[in-house]
């Protein structure tokens, strides 16, 4: 895996994959549902990715009083994040391809 200021773990890749595959902005609850990660794992990853500008987030449009519930924070992947994530996936694919080649 590439060298960044933070460690790109398998869980981080799950999160990036979920964000890449989403057609629109998704909330933390949606990401948790898609990746099946616990909140204790998911939120530190989201914080780290946001800190390094791989993802960005914004509040759901609407007044919480009118919505009748707390607003959701919606996440989407940035151009840098998408590029880096694709690079990571490509490296993994290459590594797995190499392993498959070795096995045969």
């Amino acid at each position, binding site marked *: 895996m590439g060298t960044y200021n933070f460690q790109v773990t398998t869980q981080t890749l799950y999160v990036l994959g979920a964000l890449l595959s989403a057609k629109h902005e998704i*909330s*933390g*609850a949606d990401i*948790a549902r898609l990746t099946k990660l*616990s*909140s*204790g*794992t*998911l*939120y*530190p990853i989201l*914080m*780290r990715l946001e800190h390094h500008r791989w993802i960005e987030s914004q509040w759901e449009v609407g007044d*919480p009083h009118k919505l009748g*519930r*707390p*607003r*959701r*924070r919606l996440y989407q992947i940035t151009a840098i994040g998408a590029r880096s994530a694709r690079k990571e996936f490509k490296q993994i694919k290459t590594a797995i391809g190499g392993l498959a080649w070795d096995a045969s």
Partner: protein
Amino acid sequence: MGRFLSNLLAELCAGEVMAWLPWIALRITRVAVRALPKAHRERYEEEWRGHLNEVPGALTKLGLACGFAWAAVKTRFDQVRVAEITFYYGVIVPFLALMLPMMGFMSAVWALRARRGYVASLLVDMGSSRDLQITIDRIPLGLALHLALSPHVSLESLDRSSYHYSIWCPSLSVEIEEFIGTRVLHSDPFLRFGMKKSPLPLGWRNAKVGASRHK
């Protein structure tokens, strides 16, 4: 009857506990939010409450809240680690990089100076056929180095009271002055430095000699 009552009581207790669980989950979330760095608290309070709201089931909410607490603890640790790393690479490493060589050099100089056991012969060039030789023990390192680098040192420079070798070894200039004062000089004398004996510390040298004698 007793069984019915106990079942009823258990049912009531379970209902009560299940009713309290969302409240407990919310309390845990608040505690977790408070554990976060100040800049993140407001945002994550709303975000996590929103996430709790989206999850069905009291027990799931409790589990989710515990996850938030764990996330807060991890974030806190990450922050501490970042602060530690920043402090380490920003302050400690440059400080050590600067100070260690300086400290090493200073301690080496101090150790060499503390020996004060350098033996050297100073040849006083009288400008005549008869040069005079003074053998001085316990020359300070600075003077030994200086004399080695500049072979002709004017005695006037050693006579000056502000001269730093006089501060290091005040008796030296007095000693030379007294020695020269007893002689009639025809020209300005110069000091020539010639190390006849080993520049090693006297104590070490004597110890070695002593040891060989014992054999």
